[in-house]
């Protein structure tokens, strides 16, 4: 049978960076292809070329035997390519129906045919198990529901080839299972699916064939049934990856205690509801949960940018009177923020300026109100060499650094003063396997030295690998803590979905 999609020799350069290097492959009807690779391996670039967001420098794309004109999303849609982006392309203030119908009816038409659109959406959502109400405003939907809307959008346009870019990153385990069930139904209907991921277990669960990308090149192609996790991991990274070794460490003193803390809801954030949390030296506390359940608020509270409305904060058995970012720093809390671009760094300022941001007031870096640039530069150089940061110079603007190097710099800034408490919020999000391993080792080193670490992550595997105790957050509340290995993934998933939190 002829392939539904054929890519031949796709090459794309961004300046000196070779994002895709002569990539060729084919997809057959009814096949699930997994595109596996680290962040920055070129997966998303490749798919953006396929969908017409970027124009390839070389190579061609054919669908159903016909060449696809480059750089034209409309042509890609017409050719039956549907894409579910990692960051949803939905308008929040509009309804599900409006989002799906957008662009499907002639722009010159004097009437939007809502009735037929609604009928079709309802039929499809029933057929494929994608339950969603057509008149619901997208902004009120959960992340899982929004993803269903995205998939419906593609199906509504008769997509024959569905591309899913990291679709499970934002889902609970149960939602992931539901997504996989839907994908199986779609394949039965003859759709072909390209599933982009860096999670090995999902790739193995869902695909027929795996294509591995490394540094822009196709480094391997395997039939899923005939491969193993470790083989795929090796293809992905170029070497065998070992899980981090977690040595035994004797737990130490209580470093930070939140006692019955609640916060006032602000904007769209989730307020904390009577939270009690103790962080002990030499221990990593893992906080699992679906994004948007109050983790951001808890992190902001510990970082000092959010104030408690009630309850108390106790730092090394002293009750805190006035809580602020400066108080948090003074209390010895090292902060690794969730969004390194928006919060962690100031992109257009230099590496040196960024590393002294939290401490420029101290006598080490300033003298009678004047900055000591020599000391600052020396400090930046120290961090660059100690934390193995690849950067042109301490004067380089920090936005030019790759995600992994930026994170190493933030890690250096947070850990250099040997803080007694470390707030690590999504410390490895978007990093490649090598950088993830580096961050994990540094956190484990800090644990060995006796720091109390709160690891907030949406990646359950990361939490299970590192955390001495695991807590689940849901709707602004915390579950009881469980020691390493005490709860199964399924049990954690239940808690993440908000079931059984009452017992906590």
């Amino acid at each position, binding site marked *: 049978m002829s392939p539904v999609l054929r890519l031949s020799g796709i090459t794309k350069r961004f300046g000196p960076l070779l994002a895709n290097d002569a990539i060729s492959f084919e997809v057959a009807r009814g096949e699930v292809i997994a595109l596996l690779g680290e962040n920055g391996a070129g997966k998303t670039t490749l798919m953006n070329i396929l969908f017409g967001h970027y124009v390839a420098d070389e190579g061609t794309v054919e669908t159903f035997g016909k060449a696809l004109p480059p750089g034209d999303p409309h042509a890609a849609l017409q050719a039956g390519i549907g894409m579910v982006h990692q960051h949803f392309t*939905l308008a929040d*203030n509009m309804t599900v129906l409006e989002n799906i119908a957008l*662009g499907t009816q002639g*722009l010159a038409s004097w009437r939007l045919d809502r009735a037929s659109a609604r009928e079709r959406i309802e039929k499809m959502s029933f057929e494929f198990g994608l339950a969603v109400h057509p008149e619901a405003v997208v902004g009120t939907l959960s992340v899982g529901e929004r993803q269903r809307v995205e998939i419906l959008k593609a199906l509504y346009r008769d997509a024959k080839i569905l591309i899913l870019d990291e679709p499970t990153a934002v889902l609970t385990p149960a939602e992931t299972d539901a997504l996989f069930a839907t994908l199986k139904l779609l394949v039965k209907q003859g759709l072909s699916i390209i599933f982009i991921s860096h999670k090995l277990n999902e790739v193995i669960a869902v695909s027929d064939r795996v294509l591995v990308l490394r540094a822009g090149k196709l480094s391997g192609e395997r039939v899923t049934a005939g491969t193993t996790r470790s083989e795929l991991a090796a293809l992905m990274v170029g070497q065998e990856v070992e899980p981090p070794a977690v040595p035994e460490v004797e737990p130490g003193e209580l470093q930070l205690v939140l006692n019955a803390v609640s916060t006032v809801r602000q904007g769209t954030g989730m307020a904390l509801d009577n939270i009690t949390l103790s962080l002990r030296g030499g221990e990593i506390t893992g906080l699992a949960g679906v994004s948007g359940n109050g983790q951001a608020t808890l992190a902001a509270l510990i970082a000092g940018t959010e104030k408690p409305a009630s309850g108390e904060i106790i730092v090394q058995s002293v009750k805190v009177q006035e809580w602020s970012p400066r108080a948090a720093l003074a209390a010895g809390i090292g902060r690794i923020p969730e969004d390194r671009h928006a919060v962690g760094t100031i992109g257009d300022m230099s590496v040196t300026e960024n590393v002294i941001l939290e401490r420029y007031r101290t006598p080490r870096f300033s003298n009678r109100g004047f900055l000591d640039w020599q000391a600052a530069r020396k400090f930046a150089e120290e961090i660059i060499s100690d934390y193995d940061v690849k950067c042109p110079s301490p004067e380089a603007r920090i936005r030019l650094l790759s995600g992994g190097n930026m994170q190493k710099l933030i890690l250096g800034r947070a850990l250099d003063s040997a803080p007694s408490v470390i707030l690590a919020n999504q410390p490895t999000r978007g990093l490649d396997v090598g950088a993830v391993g580096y961050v994990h080792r540094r956190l484990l080193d800090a644990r060995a030295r006796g720091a109390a670490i709160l690891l907030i992550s949406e990646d359950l595997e990361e939490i299970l690998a590192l955390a001495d105790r695991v807590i689940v957050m849901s709707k602004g509340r915390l579950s009881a803590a469980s020691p390493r290995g005490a709860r199964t993934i399924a049990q954690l998933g239940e808690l993440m979905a908000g079931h059984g939190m009452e017992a906590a």
Partner: protein
Amino acid sequence: MDAFDILLTASFWVAAIRIASPLIFATMGELICERAGVLNLGIEGIMTVGAFAGWFTVYAGGDLWMGVVVAALAGATFGLLHATLTVPLGLSQHVVGIGITLLATSLTYFTYRLLLPEVTSPPKIEPFQPLPIPGLSGIPIVGEALFTQTPLTYLAFVAVALTAWVLYRTPLGLAVRAAGENPSAVEAQGISVTGIRMGAVMVGSAMMAIGGAFLTMSAFNSFFFEMVNGRGWICIALVVFGSWRPGKALIGAILFAAFDAYQVRLQQITGGVVPYQIFLMMPYALSILALILVARRATYPKALMIPYQKGER
């Protein structure tokens, strides 16, 4: 006559609707731009251009409706300039908008001087005359206020209905609203964000210019400097007051115009005890108050003022 009786006179309502008409056109124009994600601060200047272009067409011998068309085209031209700078080039919408206002206003005055160098008092044209609608114009007060107006006023109300219909009932309107909410959603569905936004700014600017032309061709019969007099800025506030919805913005425009018509009449009956500036100030003070009460929780277009660059992550 006391302060309350004013509200019962037909002439007060006639004036209110007449004062509202240019605001309605320009507010709809601004609303269309903003719904597509572009703040058009060129409104004040584009209204000035429309006022002059429409008037001059008639002064030079053209038909009144020809004047409206020329005003709209002149507005669309400045809209094209604004859109080219803010949409494909992605420049700051604030700076471009203020620049367009300054450019359009000065260029209009300059052109006026070039074309009419000898003039000392503004020449007059024969403006649009009231066109009573048979049957409806006989209704007391309402008939006079709503159905004994000039054709341009009727057109203003048609413009509101048309704007609402297009925005909410057509695929094009859906694309315009989506471009103001999340342009990448529009791009992902195969529609050009640039095309939608530029089109919206041009159509919106044409409507602003017709609003300006109303002043010289319906409300008054000549063009003079400073005649737009901040109406454009009021329209920006009216869009917010109306929460970016045509119907609510229409109510806002009529409300503001009613305040304005009211304060003039109130000045007359208080007989100089209160300084007249207090009354002049009243509509604006009330507008601010209304904004505070109404618009604080308005859901604004999420991508308003955010330039969209294709392929940027």
